[in-house]
């Protein structure tokens, strides 16, 4: 088995250890969904209008939740040092970590989010586009999140700092994904925003591992 596949398997396994992968993020999702009617009012029309966008936004936020897992644990127990010294370049390891994050957290959420949106009153016909946007956009969230997680290694503020770093970077994928869902709801062209989202996610996939590796090396220095 190639080194990359091995690392991917390790990362994937780790992300399910001690807390069952997406369970935490899904729990967060449900809690937020329960709060929305309390804030907006339970009137069905109003909830339904807000629901798809809300679900998309919470998807972006929830993918921030398990970011500590990406680098922090390895950093603290010394595994990151070993990985850095190993045969595979740190960029490849970062790529594997990003993919594992996507597979274990953002992708399951992408499937779960539309269900919650429907529960809040969104039209079921929006489910396919929501899932597509979630899966594609999830790559951006996972990889950009990874950059934030790697940068805040060894810092004093951890979680909230990562969020501050990462959320502004989320602006384009959030806009494109919401645009795709909105366009679908209005029976307009949803392919353009979805393609833009895909382009952004591909760029994130290609470029973020370099930033993640540089940040990890910096933290280990």
């Amino acid at each position, binding site marked *: 088995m190639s080194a990359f596949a091995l690392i991917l398997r390790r990362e994937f396994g780790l992300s399910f250890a001690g807390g069952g992968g997406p369970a935490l993020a899904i729990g967060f999702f449900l809690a937020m969904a329960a709060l929305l009617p309390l804030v907006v009012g339970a009137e069905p029309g109003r909830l339904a209008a807000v629901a798809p966008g809300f679900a998309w936004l919470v998807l972006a936020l929830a993918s921030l939740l398990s970011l500590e897992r990406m680098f922090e644990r390895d950093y603290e127990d010394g595994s990151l040092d070993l990985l850095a010294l190993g045969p595979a370049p740190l960029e490849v390891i970062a790529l594997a970590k990003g993919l594992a994050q996507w597979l274990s957290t953002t992708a399951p959420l992408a499937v779960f989010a539309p269900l919650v949106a429907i529960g809040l009153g969104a039209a079921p016909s929006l489910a396919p586009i929501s899932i597509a946007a979630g899966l594609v956009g999830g790559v951006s969230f996972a990889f950009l999140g990874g*950059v934030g997680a790697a*940068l*805040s290694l*060894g*810092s*004093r*503020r951890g979680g909230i*700092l990562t969020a*501050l*770093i990462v*959320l*502004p*970077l989320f*602006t*384009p994928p959030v*806009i*494109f994904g919401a*645009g795709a869902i*909105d*366009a679908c709801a209005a029976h307009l062209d949803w392919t353009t925003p979805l393609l*833009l989202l895909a382009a*952004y996610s591909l760029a994130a996939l290609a*470029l973020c591992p370099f*930033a993640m590796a*540089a*940040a990890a090396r*910096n*933290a280990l*220095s």
Partner: protein
Amino acid sequence: MIPALLNPERFMAFSRWAAPMLGLIALVLALGGLGLDFAAPPDRHQGYSVHIMFIHVPAAIMSEVAYVCMGVAAFLSLVFRQVLATAAARAAAPLGAGLALLALVTGSLWGRPTWGTYWVWDPRLTSELVLFLFYAGVMALELAIDDEARAARAAAILALVGLIDLPIVHFSVTWWNSLHQGSSLTTPGALPGVYLTPLLMMVLAYLAGFGALWLVRIRAEVWRRRAGALALRGAAA
């Protein structure tokens, strides 16, 4: 000129006269620009509030220019590990953040008479807000890491990532705004000459002012490192 600027000694010699000169240029341009600004008649659509344009647009433009400066300096500090580059990146951040903040506040006040609200999701104001958050992230990251060298490198990486993301943010916000037919701050059509001249002068004034302050702050950084290095040597002696 670039090799001269990369050498701390020669930089200090250069900035010694360059900084005050830029400051003077900034002052003269600002006085002239403001003079022409208040000599200009109120706008047909915006009335007297058009005068805010003369302090909003330069701040907005310079907040972006400052980020590019910070990003380039960050790139140079990561690739060439030049002390001056690191100092330049760190020095630019608070200046750019202050300019972004000014752009946001003046932009909000500029829009208020026209729209009755203190905030509109105008594509430029929204981009400006995201830019401000980029600055906040870079500065927060640098402050949160104790080791100075590591903190500077982490902030530099983030600044670079932000620099690459910035055009995309602009594009995405503009695209979103075109869909929602949001409002726009700028008056449609070409700017009349009576406004154009003071506006250009103000933009150049802000540019020169940023240059002057940036040089001053980099000088402060260089002295700070010298003081620290000498103190260490003194302690070891």
